[in-house]
């Protein structure tokens, strides 16, 4: 009477087995309802590319030892500012660029936004890393609330910053920036549409995936470089790293900064795919989504790899993409999928916390 699932459960952890089974169930259900599976799959792939880099931001954070970085909103804010500046400057509408090709103009805009975002994120990430080096052992608790605080603080700034472009501010002389900023006139969908092709009903957003894989590759290279290896060691065993003459705090600083930078890049990639930039409380829970994604992929608060990101984001976003239409079959126009998202993402985080014994015990 041995349970044949037992070794599977032991290896991957119960929640992961449940999530994978749930994903498969959704696929079967979607098939059963005669939905267009190919179209759903394109949706999965699109979301995969959009969210992937945000989830990737967890890898350097976890590897350098600060744990799950709930505070990627720090980087997201940087990315959003980059996007805002580019729209303010009307880069995508720049006549000389548009003259060459509108697509090029959009690319220049998004890359410039990313560049500005990265520069800001380096500064923010450095300060953030300094803070985290002083609260060792309680990083997760602190990052969460510092992340919330920066969002709340930026809410005030979004009201006060002197942006003037009509795309950004409320019409009718309202005060402050809009809640949701349309990117239609700037870089909406620029990556998704580049080199996109269709196989039947399956749309492949080539540009988006290429960009995502490029970033993954760069991170992979970094993790194999001298610094990357030292960083991983510092995270895994600070005393070991110290014995090898490595400055652990510096490595944590590098990891935190890198994570913040990736978050800045990630939010812009997400925004271009979504077509909108969400300010104010929009990015508040993004950290939780990213954390949940890597955890679903098999990461722990101590170890995370690019494979975890790839698998986890696909599964998580896949469930969300499939869940919505399937749920609607049961109860039309319900937000069952939103409820599902809450339960899955927070459930997996709780599970991870119970597994990580003695994270920051106070004895």
């Amino acid at each position, binding site marked *: 009477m041995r349970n044949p699932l037992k070794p599977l459960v032991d290896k991957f952890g119960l929640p992961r087995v449940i999530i994978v089974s749930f994903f498969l169930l959704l696929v079967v259900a979607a098939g059963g309802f005669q939905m267009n599976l190919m179209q759903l799959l394109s949706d999965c792939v699109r979301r995969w590319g959009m969210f992937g880099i945000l989830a990737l931001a967890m890898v350097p954070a976890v590897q350098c030892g600060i744990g799950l970085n709930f505070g990627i909103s720090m980087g997201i804010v940087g990315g959003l500012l980059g996007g805002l500046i580019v729209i303010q400057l009307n880069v995508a509408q720049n006549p000389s660029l548009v003259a060459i090709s509108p697509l090029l103009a959009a690319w220049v805009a998004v890359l410039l936004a990313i560049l500005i975002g990265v520069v800001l994120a380096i500064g923010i990430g450095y300060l953030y890393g300094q*803070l985290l080096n002083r609260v060792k052992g309680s990083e*997760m*608790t602190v990052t969460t609330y510092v992340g919330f605080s920066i969002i709340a603080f930026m809410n005030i700034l979004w009201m006060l910053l002197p942006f003037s472009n009509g795309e950004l501010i409320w019409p009718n002389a309202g005060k*402050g920036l809009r809640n949701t900023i349309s990117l239609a006139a700037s870089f909406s969908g620029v990556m998704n549409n580049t080199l996109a092709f269709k196989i039947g009903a399956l749309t492949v957003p080539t540009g988006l995936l290429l960009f995502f894989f490029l970033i993954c590759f760069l991170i992979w290279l970094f993790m194999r470089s001298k610094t990357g290896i030292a960083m991983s060691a510092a995270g895994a065993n600070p005393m070991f790293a110290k014995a090898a003459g490595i400055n652990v705090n510096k490595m944590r600083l590098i990891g935190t900064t890198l994570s913040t930078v990736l978050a800045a890049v990630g939010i812009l990639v997400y925004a271009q795919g979504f077509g909108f930039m969400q300010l104010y409380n929009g990015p508040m829970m993004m950290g939780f989504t990213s954390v949940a994604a890597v955890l679903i992929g098999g990461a722990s608060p101590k170890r995370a790899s690019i494979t975890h990101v790839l698998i986890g984001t696909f599964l998580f976003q896949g469930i969300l993409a499939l869940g919505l239409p399937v749920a609607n079959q049961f109860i039309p126009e319900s937000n069952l999928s939103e409820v599902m998202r*809450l339960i899955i993402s927070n459930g997996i985080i709780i599970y991870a916390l119970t597994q990580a014994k*003695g994270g*920051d015990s106070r004895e």
Partner: protein
Amino acid sequence: MNKKLRDVLFQNKVVILFIFLCVGATIASKQPLTFVIPELFTRIARNSFIVLALIIPVIAGMGLNFGIVIGAMAAQIAIFLTTYWGFTGIGGFMATVALATPISIFFGFLVGKLFNQMKGNEMIGGLVLGYFAEGIYQLIFLFIFGGVIALNNPTLMIATGVGVKNTIDLKDTVKYALDTVPMLTIIEIGFYLVLIGLVCSTIFKLAKKQTVDWKKTILSAAAALVVYGLTYIGPVEQFLAKDRLMLLSAIELGCLATVIWQALKFVRSKLSAGNAGALDAAVGAVRKPFNGKRALVNLGLAAVIYGLTYVPALYKVLIVVQLPVMTYLCIGALCCFNNILMKTRLGQNMRTVGQSRTVANAAGINVDKTRIIAMIFSTVLASWGQLIFLQNVGTLSTYGAHTQVGQFAIAALLVGGASVQKATNKQALLGIVLFHTLFIVSPLAGKELFGDPVIGEYFRVFVSYGVIAMALAMHAWKRPVKEKVETEKPDDGKKVEAA
């Protein structure tokens, strides 16, 4: 002396900062005190209970309990069900309490169990758990109610019959159920409670064949009877027939009570000096001697406060504010409960566990069980707190009423000067006053200063997050410094011991 003053200022820096913020924002908002103060007292009545529910977990070393959201959810489940069943008035409120209590005990037990699995990560765990519970809660209210369990009530349910409406009006059910209990009833109930208590304890002692202090028992009963009898005097009865107490009257009564209390103490100290001195010496007990200076200070203070009520500006404010007596009594009772609990065996165990789990273990205290009990207490109290809040507000926003509960309660507690390891009733109450003053005036101040109330609103949200972030960071920050003193080697020492 100068250094001492600086120390006091430094230790209370958060409180001082917020006092300045509140005063500044109030001035900037250009609102009269007759608007701010009544509003503030309404909010104190609504929110104090749930903030006070946070104290026990802090003492038990579990930090700020972000899991009180779950207690609030238990309360909302209960209030939904009693509304559906059609309970109203104070009876309906008591039924809701009776229903919410077992639900929250069960939830508290589960939360406690879970927290024992993630010792040291309770705070982040509680936060995530809150979101997780939110998912379950929505599942229940949106799909199970009406979907799985057939509920037929068009005023509560969404038109499709599946899922509960966004807002539930409590006006005809339990709105002001607790606030409107007349003082007369309170005294009456109190009288019967005292009698029952005396009888029970006497029977208990007789059954166990312990000696009964008949004189004391009879005296207490007589005192209760006298107080109860007073309510039959015409003017007194008239005064007590109301359910709200004017703040002015409350202050007057407070001053009077102080005077009577000091007088009683004085008489008692004289009596015991006279005839019980020998007895005291024999027992060896150190009865606190009557402190004449302190009594005078108290009396003086009472006199000054009473005198202040004659200042016209204050008088204007004082006659506007109407306190819901029963609600304030509940808050007072919870303060007493928190204090008394700490003087019991269980409370001492909680303190020990909170200070050091290792020592507690070595002393034979069941650490896990103590933590679970602390969690149950907190969750139950939070659910009661949420009920008090809802009966005062009068509408239940089904999917929104609980979301910010933990956030705001914790922020309030921290504003009052509490920290992750230490929190007292005083800090909680002071925090509520400051935090909610800021809450009332900041949108208005935002409008006056920036021409937009939204900025003020964002500011208060930022404050609530920021103060928590700061408290958590400061808590984590302090530790290495402390270790440095002990081992002169901050982080490394710990690692080696752990290894």
